[in-house]
């Protein structure tokens, strides 16, 4: 009986892997908000309200200069969006946020209202990693949030392995390191050793506000404010934690696996 019950239930559940990226992306929760957009031209003179509420110092506005928002430091608390009188900072409901260069997360300058999304790897690396990318995940001072949503990509709903991307146990089997967490001092040696054990050429992917720049713990004496303090980063995926869709988008973007028109 038991075997048949299990089979029936299994058949009833059907295929649970989502259609994305062939089908449209699953909708973000309505209150999620997605990436931020900054129209610094809308700022009123001398207004500092967003600067004052931002918990991580992601927003700066030195006297006489335009507003600058660093999406890498942002933990998406929405405080600035709520407080901004002329609505210079807004949310886009866009899940796409991954970038290749740290500077591409700096918003506010003319023409830089939104993040400049990651370009794919160069030809040589694409040939190596484009169809098979193995990642050793290192949690280095994370809260467990990013780790959980990185893990979620491996479940049947997202099924990361259909893209040839897998998490592996040994750095020797890996093509790169995926880092989460603000990199506590106590994890710096372990992160360095893991990175060193990955054969060249290798990639580093920083997932979450912590791994990019320290997240909510930026400035704490026991943290190194992100992965780049220890290893060179090739892809930054903002969020606290990033939605699984945001992480997946970043990985697919890097491997040039998103079809034209879906970018």
């Amino acid at each position, binding site marked *: 009986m038991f075997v048949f019950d299990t089979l029936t239930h299994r058949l009833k559940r059907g295929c649970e892997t989502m259609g994305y990226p062939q089908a449209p992306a699953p909708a973000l929760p309505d209150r999620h908000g997605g990436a931020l957009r900054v129209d610094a031209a809308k700022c009123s003179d001398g207004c500092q309200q967003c600067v004052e509420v931002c918990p991580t110092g992601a927003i700066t506005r030195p006297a006489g200069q335009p507003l600058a928002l660093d999406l890498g430091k942002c933990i998406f608390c929405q405080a600035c969006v709520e407080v901004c009188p002329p609505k210079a900072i807004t949310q886009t409901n866009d899940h796409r946020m991954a970038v290749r260069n740290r500077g591409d997360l700096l918003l506010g300058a003319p023409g830089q209202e939104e993040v400049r999304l990651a370009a794919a790897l160069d030809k040589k690396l694409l040939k190596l990693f484009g169809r098979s990318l193995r990642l050793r995940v290192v949690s280095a001072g994370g809260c*467990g949030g990013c780790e959980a949503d990185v893990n979620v990509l491996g*479940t049947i709903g997202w099924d990361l392995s259909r893209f040839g991307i897998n998490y592996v146990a040994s750095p020797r089997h890996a093509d790169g390191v995926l880092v989460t967490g603000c990199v506590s001092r106590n*994890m710096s040696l372990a992160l360095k050793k893991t990175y060193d054990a990955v054969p060249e050429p290798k990639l580093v992917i920083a997932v979450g506000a912590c791994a990019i720049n320290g997240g909510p713990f930026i400035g*704490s004496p026991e943290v190194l404010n992100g992965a780049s303090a220890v290893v060179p980063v090739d892809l930054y995926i903002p969020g606290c934690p990033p939605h699984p869709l945001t992480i997946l988008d970043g990985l697919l973007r890097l491997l040039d696996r998103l079809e034209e028109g879906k970018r």
Partner: protein
Amino acid sequence: MSTPPLSSPPAAGAFTFLANGTSLPWADLPEFNAPDLVRATGAEIDRGARLCAWFGVPEGDATRLVAVLAFDADSTLAVARSTPVRGSYPALTVTHPQAHMFEREVWEQHHLNPEGHPWLKPVRASNTAGDAPAVGEFFRVNGPEIHEVAVGPVHAGVIEPGHFRFQCAGEEVLHLEIALGYQHRAVEDILPGGPHRATMHQMETVAGDTTIAHATAYANVLEALAGTEAPLRAQWVRAVALELERLANHTGDIGALAGDVAFLPTASACGKIRGDFLNLSALVCGNRFGRALVRPGGTRLDLEAERATRLLERLKVALGEVEAAAGWFWDAASVRARFENVGVVFGPQATEIGLVGVAARACGLVRDVRFDHPTGWYRFAQAPVAVWPGGDVYARARVRWLELQRSGQFLQEQLAAAPAGPVNEPLGPAAPDTFAVALVEGWRGEVCHVALTDARGAFRRYKIVDPSFHNWTGLALALRGQAISDFPICNKSFNLSYCGFDL
């Protein structure tokens, strides 16, 4: 100043009592000299109290010790402090092992030596190079047949870092020592002088899978300090979010346990359903882990009627699915055979080391803050406490399953019974020189936050105790006499937090 003479052991009730989520002036905490505080605390534990927190408050170049105890049967907390001490004091751990980790922590944070402590070593501090925790000497078993297995800090799966040292005779584990501290972010060190702008967000990420419980404990502390009560509707929203957090994590754990015994139908279904529960939290606040929902004075967002209806509908579907997925699991004799009598923590051991939460209830101990020390919405509505005897992997899985069902039922009832009104209340300033305690039953167990303010009402000391702080010792005991290959299911059945412990 000379040391005051030792008085005779204090009579029962020499502690000051307060209710969960309340405050009292710092000056009103009864004062003992340190040896007397140790004795008095021991006496209260003997009378049935549990040690919720034991920590130091710096005073000049000395330290005052503070004890927070819970009398579960009376729904009261008992607190007391010592006069300022320097150097050393007689260890409480010698007679009451549940103080073991607390006294190591006090030694590390305040350089106070608990004299006679059987195993004094770092908890999470850095080594001199500052690039790894200074874990100290591992316990070693000697003998020609003994071999040592070292695992971590970077583990095989996508999990947080920690180091495990097994002393084995063949397959059998004689002793497991767990060395943590890799995730140490100095949470407690950056709180004095606060709350700062980032504090609320740091509380939400003390342990990211327990966002609602830690955020609620923090909010309760600030509300107790300010004498502000969050509106009823906010308390209702918090309870809904807390139970959703429980459902998601328990589902994930059942799936992970199934995965470790290669029972894949349940493992894959639960992995997916866990996500469905997380998405329900995101429906409430936009974030799958419940960030930016709980705020001191209430909640940032309301759960409007229409949203609650949608939530209820999706909840019923997810509960139905998890019911089916777990059904296969419990029906499988192969699964039960693998879980039964594996990783046993005996009831008396559980009491002695002060287990909390799921791990305690799986040893037959009736311990649940929602029931024993209700605050917020739990004063009006309660889910029954889920208890299972046995103390083995099976019991811990079973308690999760019972809680899933009961929290599911609770949520369905509560979602249909929303109180009207606003969801936040302006928070007054924190009272100066005041001491506040809040306990919240997170999905792993008791989350304890304690604050002491200075003359300006800023934090002078803030203490956080994640349930994992009590429970890691439980995992070490559970492994005694087990095969080392049983470690994964033992570990998953506890599923403790590294960052919540490392702080």
